């Protein structure tokens, strides 16, 4: 448990933190968020005493470490910072072992830990343990940064915008990984970000700070439901659920599905399926009008003698029109077991398809925001 009691921090005349009070229970994923300069990093660094408060107390499991040597405390609190956290003069294994070594664990124990941790994030030991940070990608480096923070099994881990410098894809993967590790290992994590999508996705509790004070402290649901101020609301922005406007099929649709002209031969068609990794293609006529679908199964069954795909065209797949209410199609996909619905324009040309995948993406985006 981490408790801030009347914490004040000043730099010269500027008061950076005003009487900060909050409690973080064990095992919670807490995200500090707020505008730049609001004091997130300062608050975080007070927990491992890289910064000392001017007034007030910070208790960790009920104990005030002020005035005591912080070295030991820090060895029991994991710490991940943005970008350059890994020591470039050490291999991956050495980096991960830093804190266990400081705690006096022997080489064998450290090595075992390195094995175990690398396995947890699917980086094979043989391949990665002896690489240097500059031989890894940004995402891999930050993974190792997280592992290093976990290596001595600290109950608390602090992370300051750990994924800020990563591309959106890698960030997403690492977010999932950290969330998974946190659940599995029951860590208390204090995580700083200025990305609301990230906060909503990761947090059990969000602490929204502004000007060195807490604007709102609430679980993501509650914050979405009842933002405490306009500032919080503007941060939530696009992440808020709007229940007013109905959704149309085009909202769930994936454009550019794989199509094929009905004159084409079966072999060519099969080849295109293999190349695109799909098992059916939409068949169109010379004017791009939708005719039906052709599946790899039908090609296999009777395709050889057919030569052209024309006789194999099936019209069983459900079609809908642009502007139709999405709910019916969504229900149909969820209940029928069919894998897609074709969306047509009014002139019967193909606009796109709705798949379970494209559906899930939209739902996820409305919940967590579509970050880039």
């Amino acid at each position: 448990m981490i408790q801030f009691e009347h914490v004040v921090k000043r730099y010269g005349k500027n008061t950076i933190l005003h009487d900060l009070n909050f409690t973080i229970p064990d095992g919670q994923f807490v995200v500090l968020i707020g505008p730049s300069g609001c004091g997130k990093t300062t608050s975080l660094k007070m927990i491992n005493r890289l910064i000392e408060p001017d007034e007030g107390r910070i208790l960790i499991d009920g104990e005030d470490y002020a005035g005591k040597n912080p070295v030991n405390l820090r060895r029991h609190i994991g710490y991940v910072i943005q970008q350059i956290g890994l020591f470039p003069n050490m291999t991956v294994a050495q980096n991960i072992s830093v804190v266990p070594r400081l705690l006096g664990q022997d080489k064998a124990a450290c090595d075992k830990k390195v094995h175990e941790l690398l396995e947890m994030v699917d980086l094979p030991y043989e391949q990665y343990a002896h690489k240097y940070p500059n031989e890894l990608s940004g995402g891999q480096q930050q993974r190792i940064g997280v592992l290093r923070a976990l290596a001595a099994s600290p109950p608390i881990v602090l992370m300051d915008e750990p994924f800020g410098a990563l591309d959106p894809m890698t960030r997403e993967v690492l977010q999932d990984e950290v969330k998974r590790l946190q659940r599995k290992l029951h860590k208390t994590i204090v995580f700083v970000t200025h990305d609301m999508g990230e906060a909503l996705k990761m947090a059990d509790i969000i602490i929204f700070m502004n000007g060195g004070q807490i604007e709102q402290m609430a679980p993501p649901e509650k914050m979405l439901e009842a933002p405490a101020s306009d500032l919080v609301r503007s941060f939530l922005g696009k992440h808020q659920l709007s229940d007013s406007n109905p959704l149309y099929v085009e909202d769930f649709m994936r454009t550019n599905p794989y199509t094929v002209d009905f004159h084409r031969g079966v072999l060519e068609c099969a080849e295109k399926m293999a190349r695109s990794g799909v098992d059916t293609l939409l068949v169109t006529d010379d004017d791009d009008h939708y005719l039906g679908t052709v599946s790899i199964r039908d090609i296999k069954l009777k395709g050889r003698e057919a030569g052209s795909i024309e006789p194999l065209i099936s019209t069983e797949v459900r079609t809908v029109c642009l502007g139709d209410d999405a709910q019916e199609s969504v229900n149909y996909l969820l209940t029928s077991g069919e894998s897609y619905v074709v969306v047509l324009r009014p002139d019967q040309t193909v606009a796109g398809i709705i798949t379970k995948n494209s559906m899930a993406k939209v739902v996820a985006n409305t919940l967590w925001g579509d970050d880039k």
Partner: protein
Amino acid sequence: MSDFFSMYGQMLIRSILIHLKYVLISVSAGFALGLGLGILLSRLPPKFSAVILPILSIFQTVPGIVFIGLLFLWIGMIPATAIIALSVYAMFPVLKNTYTGIEQVPAGYCEAAVGCGMTSMQVLVRVELPLAMPTIIGGLRMSTVYTISWAVLSSMIGLGGLGDFIYQGVSSNNNTLIIAGAIPAAVMAVLAGALIDRVQKKVVPRGLRKEAIR
């Protein structure tokens, strides 16, 4: 040619050995001093280095011969005079590079190290010095190469070394003698440089090599 060797061979070998001795002792002493003082300076508040470093660079511009001369008047004509003078000069590049090398370590690494629970000594030994190592060894290289040429000065106060040949050659207008002194010194400098480059490769981990600074 063989005439030359039968006449001067013995003396040449002795001079090389003396020269080498001066260089080895003063570079070692200078390196230890420079490393120690450089680390010390990096521990002090920046206002100290802001004063000390410029003073050192002024001092460094005092011609070696002046300094050796002064020491000679003070201590006398013993090898210690040459060695002290050379050590002081050998110290400068190491001191400066140690200090700048440590200063150049990005603050993020030190913060990460402190955040991991390292004591300031551990941060120094495990993070700052290894990261500064390419620069420090660059300083060592410079100081070795310089010392090899500065050691020539010690013969000016009658302490021997390859300078004997050069000064004799100059005063008697004998080019062979000048070359006989200069070539071994040059070869020594090149070999020492190459040796230190090898050491550099050995002690600098792969992770730092791409960003190695001379």
